[in-house]
């Protein structure tokens, strides 16, 4: 590919990825409100558009026209930068997620991800750790008590569970023998004995730890202490209104979808699935498999929110440091032994 062509293709990918994420959030917010409503035996938003699907758009427009107020004691520059940072880090994570099989047009092959980094897993962990800054800075720069409390809580929570999140991925990397996300998906193609798909979900402890840590990392129930309305008003975004608030909202839902897409990529085989039909269908089907898997995980997120009560702060910390992290360390040891035995045979053989 020539330099210009590369530029054009990358530009198109970026625009498509951005549009895809914004559209996903529009649907996601509506789906969450409807599903939680049905779980709680009510209707949820059902007026705007068919089944209420335009409700998010209406809410977004409303926020767009609302006044953005700034507290008198706020540190203005950081106060403005925090919501932007939240959205940017959320968008950046999606960059390395492959949403479909590579497409060959003519004699050029295009990957269906914005870019494939060799250190993709590390990149994801690094960028999502930057998301903590948005929350911490929003709380501090507001110059107000509740946001500060919320942001201290969230920073502690997010770095605690980030450790478990990263450790849960180590066995996946060891079995896939690559840290590129496209490589990890490739490694999950094929089957075990021609029967079961060779997905990483067989690394069940990793899957469970990743999912739990993912709930905590995205500040979702039952780990939503960051914005526990009953205790600290709205947490870090208490002092934000209008579009600035909408940015935090957008970032939160992009993060939720990212986490679901990452779970699908790491453990559910990504875009792998049965392929059939004409050539064009063989390119479309992987995208559909990827979307189905991601939305199944999204449903898990919503289900957990509709079912589980919020846990207490000391329980949160104890669970993260005394349960999740030791379990993932032991699991890494076991995975290491399993790989060693597979490669070199039993030590006494």
């Amino acid at each position: 590919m020539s330099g210009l062509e590369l530029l054009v293709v990358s530009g198109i990918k970026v625009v498509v990825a951005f549009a895809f994420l914004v559209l996903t959030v529009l649907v996601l917010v509506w789906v969450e409100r409807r599903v939680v409503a049905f779980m709680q035996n009510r209707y949820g938003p059902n007026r705007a558009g068919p089944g209420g699907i335009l409700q998010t758009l209406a809410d977004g427009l409303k926020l767009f026209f609302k006044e953005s107020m700034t507290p008198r004691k706020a540190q203005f520059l950081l106060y403005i930068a925090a919501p932007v940072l939240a959205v940017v880090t959320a968008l950046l994570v999606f960059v390395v997620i492959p949403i479909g099989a590579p497409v060959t047009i003519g004699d050029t092959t295009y990957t269906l991800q914005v870019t494939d980094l060799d250190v993709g897993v590390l990149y994801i962990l690094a960028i999502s750790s930057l998301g903590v800054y948005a929350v911490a800075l929003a709380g501090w720069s507001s110059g107000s008590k509740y946001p500060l409390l919320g942001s201290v809580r969230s920073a502690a929570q997010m770095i605690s569970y980030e450790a478990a999140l990263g450790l849960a991925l180590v066995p996946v990397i060891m079995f896939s023998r690559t840290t590129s996300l496209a490589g990890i998906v490739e490694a999950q193609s094929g089957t075990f004995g021609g029967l079961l798909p060779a997905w990483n979900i067989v690394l069940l402890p990793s899957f469970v730890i990743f999912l739990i840590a993912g709930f905590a990392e995205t500040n979702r129930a039952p780990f939503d202490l960051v914005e526990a309305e009953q205790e600290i008003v709205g947490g870090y975004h208490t002092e934000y209104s209008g579009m600035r608030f909408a940015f935090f909202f957008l970032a939160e839902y992009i993060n939720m979808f990212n986490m679901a897409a990452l779970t699908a990529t790491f453990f559910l085989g990504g875009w792998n699935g049965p392929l059939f039909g004409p050539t064009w269908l063989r390119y479309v089907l992987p995208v559909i498999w990827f979307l189905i898997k991601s939305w199944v995980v999204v449903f898990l997120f919503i289900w957990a929110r509709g079912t589980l009560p919020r846990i207490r702060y000391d329980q949160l910390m104890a669970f993260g440091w005394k349960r999740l992290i030791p379990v993932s360390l032991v699991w890494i040891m076991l995975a290491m032994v399993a790989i060693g035995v597979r490669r070199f045979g039993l030590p006494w053989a």
Partner: protein
Amino acid sequence: MHVSFEQWLTEIANYVFAALAIPTLVGAWMVVTSTNIVRAVLYLVVTLAGSAALFIMLGAEFVGWTVVLVYIGAVIILFLIGIMITRAPLGSHEELSHPATVKIPAALLSIVLFTVVAWAVADAFGGLAIPPDVGATRTGQLAEVIFQRFVIPFEVVSLVLLSALVGGIALARKDEPEEPA
């Protein structure tokens, strides 16, 4: 390898380097001159981000992203939490400004340290050019060097972390008051 200023100007990579290095230096300067401690910490983020970007520019993607993950994503965030839990001042802070008896030796020490490190690096690697076709990642090579040739220093460094951990627990622990006899 000596490069004249005109040659330096023709290379686009040098402009990228300058665009990354100047913010890094400005950030480092602001860390020590800022009078608000939260801002100082944030300028430290700028400096570290600049150094991570320089690593990535040199093709050491793994090291670059590790700097982001470990230093920006964990260490500095812990600084921020520490500051926020204790006081989190919004305005400027007089205590952060030291008298000249502290400033001048500190500046001298920094200059000496910079000279030593710069001289050592230039002496050891000054003549080396980065091969253009090496690709962006040499993570595998890095792993081999760390876990084969330098495995003992690597383990010793982890002992430093362990002792820091033990020290942290010793400082934070509240001892039970002794029973009156």
